[in-house]
């Protein structure tokens, strides 16, 4: 039926306004090892429980967000703009 995500820019919105891209991973520096790139492109932990995911507020501000939530209970611990989220390999 519904669930609600509170966008830091737009306020509380139904999940239909968002699309989810999966684990919030920082893109590696172009020069890091083959192995790091392989891990970034292909490998995901798929944890059960607390999880940080990229959500795109496609029907709102169109900002990419990082939603920190529990994928079992759907408890949301925080939603932040992805531009301020940490990056890997730097």
């Amino acid at each position: 039926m519904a669930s609600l995500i509170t966008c830091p820019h737009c306020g509380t919105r139904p999940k239909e306004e968002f699309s989810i891209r999966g684990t919030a991973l920082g893109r590696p520096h172009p020069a890091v090892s083959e192995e790091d790139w392989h891990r970034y492109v292909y490998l995901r932990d798929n944890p059960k429980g607390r999880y940080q995911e990229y959500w795109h507020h496609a029907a709102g501000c169109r900002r990419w967000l990082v939603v920190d939530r529990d994928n079992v209970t759907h408890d949301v611990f925080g939603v932040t703009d992805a531009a301020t989220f940490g990056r890997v390999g730097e």
Partner: protein
Amino acid sequence: MTSYRLGNAGSVNRGQPLTFTFDGKNYKGFEGDTLASGLLANDQMLMGRSFKYHRPRGPVTAGSSEPNALMTIGTGARSEPNVRATVAELYNGLTAVSQNRWPSLTFDVGAVNGLLSPMLGAGFYYKTFMWPAALWEKLYEPVIRRAAGLGKLAMQADPDRYEKSWAHCDLLVIGSGPTGLMAALAAGRAGARVILVDEGFRLGGSLLSESASIGGVSPADFAAAMIEELEALPNVTLMPRTTVFGWYDDMVFGAVERVQKHVGTPSPDLPMERLWRIAAKRAILATGSEERPLVFGGNDKPGVMTASAVRTYANRYGVAAGGKIAVFTNGGSGYRTAADLVAAGVDVTAIIDARAQSADAVPDNVRVIRNGAVVSTKGRKRLEALIAERSGFQEQIACDALAMAGGWSPIVHLMCQRGAKPVWSDEAQAFLAPDVGAAFIAAGSAAGQDRISACLKDGATKAVALARELGFAAYEMNIPEVEGEYDPAFAPIWYVPGARDKAFVDFQNDVAVSDLGLAQREGFRHIEHTKRYTTAGMATDQGKLGNVATIGIVAGMRGVSPAAIGTTTFRPFYTPVSFGALAGTSRSEHAAPVRTSPLHDWAKKNGATFVEAGLWHRSAWFPREGEKGWRDSVDREVKNVRRNAGLCDVSTLGKIEIFGKGAAEFLNRIYCNNFLKLPVGKARYGLMLREDGMIFDDGTTSRLSETHYVMTTTTAYAAEVMSHLEFASQTFWPELDVRFVSSTDQWAQMSLAGPKARAIISRVVEDDISDAAFPYLAAKPVTLRGGLKARLFRISFSGELAFELAVPAGYGEAVADALMEAGKDEGICAYGVEALNVLRIEKGFITHNEIDGRTTPDDLGYGRMLAMQKADFIGKRQSSRFGLTAADRMQLVGLKPVEVDKEFMAGAHLLKEGATPSMANDQGWVSSVCHSPTLGHVIGLAMLKSGRERYGEKIVVWDGLRGKEVAAAVCPPVFADPDNRKLQE
């Protein structure tokens, strides 16, 4: 026919009589009746047949948990099966028919199942119809379905409208009994936004059914006064006829409002039902509790119902459930029922109390059999007598109705729908609501409070606390004095042993105690297994009445506490919800929003046939008189573009405006080819890769100024590309100064292609568009004659000399008309996406048929575009990995049939001559096929292993789906103008 309507009791409107029919017979009732109370008032106790054994059944309840009294209401397209007569609001002209019987309710051939019932125990179907498996679909299932069934659907489209709506509140109160009314008023007075929802058509819940004195007035009058005050509060919304059926994430509740189910002639301007999504900051579950039936032999005779139902029929509807009513009880509810009946002048023959003693007040002149039990019942279509047993002695007591009081189960379903399990309480002898956090709490009877006074207080106290938590100044409520309430305490008995007749725990699915025993013996011991093996709790009522007894009985058989057995899983929906309500307005042509191009009307008046492309409706081809099929039109359009000129609507292509000092660098990282040095006024074809090295999308990007670009994407990937750019900009390189906005909708864009394109377009555009001034891949703002600002791009998706002209959308139709007029003498025609596709296949241009997520630039012949010397671009690192550069990768080739009259289709696979079709022998597949009017035969684009080395090879096009094989020659993928001479003209 006896009338069971009681003097002046109840709150039905006797000034408003209603007529209705049941199985073709006319009846009279009153406004405020349910269908069930109306039928009972007319001595119609038999209301249905059970699912499996076709046993005659009457109502067991007076509410939404009803398992038996299911009927089909309405006629024609509006007929609705499986409506519970106990909640269906009576209206004038209502038509109801009984279900699951043939030829009639009173004489049902299927009742022979009842005689065979010793053979038809739990698991009978599993054991009997196991094999041969082939017979399942053809024989067993259809036969079983016909025999065991519920009502039939009307096989016509639903004529009614449905809607969905959101609602928002500080406090949602579910249930409008004593608890809910007090809660709503406490929070409402404090100024909180309150929504009070009740499934009944009158607010008041159990207050409408009980006899007591609250603050000196009857419970019903007390409720009326509360409702009056609530109605006057602007911050309170009252929603009767609305069932909260589900609790979802983030405190969103699903509810369905029956807007016009109680109306004989529905208004076309109102929906039949409305689906609500209620976002609540806090919620109170005030759903009350359900009275449990008792499990004894023959407990399903029409006339046996719960004591609270008997009381509701008497006190609320002014209807006696029978002429001589007996009571079988394990607590105070039975005594209160007897007292209310006696007060209404109904003959109560006996109270059979399972307990040895109790302090409950016995009405005058009513006999009490303590330490007794009902072991059997007599009668066929209606109860005639019961056999009571006490200390081994049996006695027959004549009665035509039996009120059974088996204790209470709090209605906690909603709280258990998100994973929490209800908690067994030895003290309450019931499953209680789990703790699901502070935002959603149970109150009153749903929280195990058993008296009206306690419920009033609990509702008020909890609502005040919640309102204060939300920052409202809520004041403690005065709790009115309640006089004459009874003690509903009970001593549970799960079932009466030694029954000769079946003792049912699940009435609708005909599950008896014996079935539960069989399930235990055969190893289906886990309660979820017991449920599925016996089907207990799996009927449309989802075991609202019987599940607790099932658990209690299984616990007894195993010698453990019900806590050790646990409950089955609770899921939405609490009661059935129609598909109509769930779909809302999203049906037939409104199933999804439609996107129309600014040239839609232009295409329509030019006779276009439209095709759905995503949400877009695009012009597919433009048939003319005399053309026999789409191929004729498409062939003509293609030939005309190659010979003269054609105009195609390409407004649906994604258009993204890109701004900023960092835009050039950004594009250089987004595309795999170079974009840094794209001059102002030029367009460039680009390939975007995914990070894994596969192509993501293609298109052109034009530089309109030093810091302003416009990107075109494919129609299909417009949204994805926009998200991709935003993702890259916001998460990869937030330091780059680049901003985007979609301008897809701003522009009507027309592709004018063909050797005469320049001549035509120069009549409309003021600027010099000669080849010298406006060469291939020029991209500039231009001015139309008359002054309109536009954009012109010299790009081609057909291989012909071509321009794309973009004008503000509102002028699209006018400009397209002007171009058609300007090109009339040149033989211009409109062409659609089918011809566009043929033109591009002839030219070997790729679309998402080829960009299918498995292809690299090199696979498609664009390997030289990969600018590996760039420091970074999306997809760079994975592009060089082993496997993406392997020599035997599938490469794009062209295919021509060896015999020109032979055809093949996209999706076919490629095999070496003589090879048997197998995964190992697979050489590739056909991605795009069309009939080429230019060449006069079918041509195809295909992905073939090491394809570019195999030009000239003969190969088999194997179409396993259609059982076809065609010999084809492998050729380069460009069939028309391979040297691009036309583009440069």
